[in-house]
């Protein structure tokens, strides 16, 4: 009846998560700011929340398609793991704006970034962060692709809303 269990053993999966978290959030503050801070905050929050939403649906009964870390239930390192997706989402929209990607190149950007996500997830499965049961990396590729498309739509909506309100001020 532990509300938020600690890892069984502090080994490769925990170090992978901590290294990813540190690298991600240090990298977020390095490049030149392209978006207003509240919009960046929304993008990072979206990146953190949506994977948790998927895990809270697909990794639990009755589906139980995969496990995360040492337990099949929520544990402390799962909370830390979800924070990693924030910078991942941020750099997706940052790169899109920075390289001024438009038209068909958008599809290539989404596919490329989804492949990067699948690559990171594959390393995650090797070190024990993810244990796939009835899941595979192809499903992840499609989920990443759909969510990144959604994030692009939302981030453009948020930016437009910001700019319109700012002009009215």
């Amino acid at each position, binding site marked *: *009846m532990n509300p938020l269990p600690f890892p069984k053993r502090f080994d490769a999966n925990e170090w992978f998560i901590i290294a990813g978290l540190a690298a991600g959030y240090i990298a977020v503050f390095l490049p030149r700011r392209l978006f*207003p801070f509240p919009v960046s905050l*929304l993008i990072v*929050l979206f990146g953190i929340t949506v994977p948790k939403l998927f895990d*809270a649906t697909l990794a639990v*009964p009755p589906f139980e398609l995969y496990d995360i870390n040492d337990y099949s*239930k929520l544990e402390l390192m799962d909370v830390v793991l979800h924070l990693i997706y924030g910078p991942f989402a941020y750099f997706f929209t940052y790169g899109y704006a920075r390289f001024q990607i438009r038209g068909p190149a958008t599809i290539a950007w989404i596919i490329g970034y989804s492949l990067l996500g699948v690559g990171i997830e594959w390393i995650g499965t090797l070190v024990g962060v993810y244990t796939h049961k009835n899941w595979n990396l192809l499903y992840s590729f499609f989920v990443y692709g759909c969510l990144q498309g959604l994030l692009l739509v939302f981030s453009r909506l948020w930016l437009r809303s910001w700019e319109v309100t700012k002009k009215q001020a």
Partner: protein
Amino acid sequence: MVLGAYLVATLLAVLIFAFLPKRLHLLELWFNAIVHVYFYTYQFSVLTNLKFVALPESPDKAVASVAIRFIMFPVIVLLFLQLYDKWIQRSWAAGLATIIVTGALLALVQPVLQWTGIIRYSNAGIYWSALAWFVLLGINSGCMIAFRRLIRKELLLP
């Protein structure tokens, strides 16, 4: 049957919300919805670990549960925040009363969810459920105020 009823109810809640006049800015609505889903999913997982709640075993009820937890509840919380925003400007007591009334109403949904098998609750009564909602609504209203202060530095909002 149960799935259909919950999907229709969720769709109705979304439509009602879409056509109601908004007090909050679009960015605030998104921020508050995301913050709510974030804290709600963690709170639910922690309550599952404590064996206070359990998800249904059939996939159709699990889908209904997703619709209720991740669409309908956020819509209700956004409606609450619109009311809270209105009442907190009159007095803090009115704001607190809005939190208590909304939390109590959301806790009263529990028997319906239990009866239809969407979420299985332990026999601990609805008191902790109401407490969980008060905490969640308190966090949400605090985050809403913090985000509003942040965006008001650059945007002119009413």
